[in-house]
């Protein structure tokens, strides 16, 4: 399930929706990204996330489909916020469930790595020295590329 929203989310309630009543779940992998107070050694007062409505939902749905194709998953949840956020605010949640822990953990890691470079969001940081757009990082490209040449890293891959 994909949710692109301005409002905050409740981690406990969202994760419960992935597991409650489904006794096939052996493992839940989860990642939550938050706004840090520091970037490039500058104090950040806010971060505004711009996105491409319509395309964002399509891209995230495509990422979910890719993860379900690579691993045997019971459920996938991606929540991504947009708008003005402050340090400590939640930005993104990725949750995956599977019968087995490796599939849940790896697919969660995969999804957040691909989100970084394939989801149409742009971040504008505000600090004492003004506003600046967050630049894409080579290390994020590398992390995303890591998943390109190998279907999965473990023996849990879908056959």
């Amino acid at each position: 399930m994909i949710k692109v929203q301005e409002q905050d989310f409740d981690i406990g309630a969202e994760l419960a929706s992935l597991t409650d009543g489904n006794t096939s779940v052996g493992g839940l992998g989860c990642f939550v990204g938050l706004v840090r107070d520091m970037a490039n050694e500058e104090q950040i007062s806010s971060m505004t996330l711009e996105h491409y409505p319509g395309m964002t939902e399509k891209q995230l749905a495509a990422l979910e489909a890719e993860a379900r194709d690579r691993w045997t998953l019971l459920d996938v949840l991606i929540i991504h916020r947009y708008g003005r956020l402050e340090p400590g605010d939640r930005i993104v949640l990725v949750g995956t469930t599977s019968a087995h822990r490796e599939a849940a953990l790896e697919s969660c890691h995969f999804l957040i790595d691909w989100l970084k470079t394939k989801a149409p969001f742009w971040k504008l940081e505000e600090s004492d020295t003004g506003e600046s757009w967050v630049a894409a990082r080579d290390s994020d490209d590398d992390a995303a590329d890591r998943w390109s040449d190998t279907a999965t890293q473990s023996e849990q891959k879908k056959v």
Partner: protein
Amino acid sequence: MQLLYFGWVRTKIGSGRETLDPPAEITDVRSLVEWLKQRGDGYQEALQDLETIRVAVNQEMVDLDALVSPSDEIALFPPMTGG
């Protein structure tokens, strides 16, 4: 043709969305971008380095050789920074 701009492409051009009618010889992304660069300093500055420009046609990522037509929604933006 619907044009959308995001991130610093938007702030340099000074607009997030506009409807334009490029001449008939503009049939692919590359020629569209060159044509846009003639529209003013903001466009010139935003689009000068094609290495840093990403393009979506009708919300699908494409490369510079992709074809464009007057009914398309075309978005130009910097590398994405989601997550």
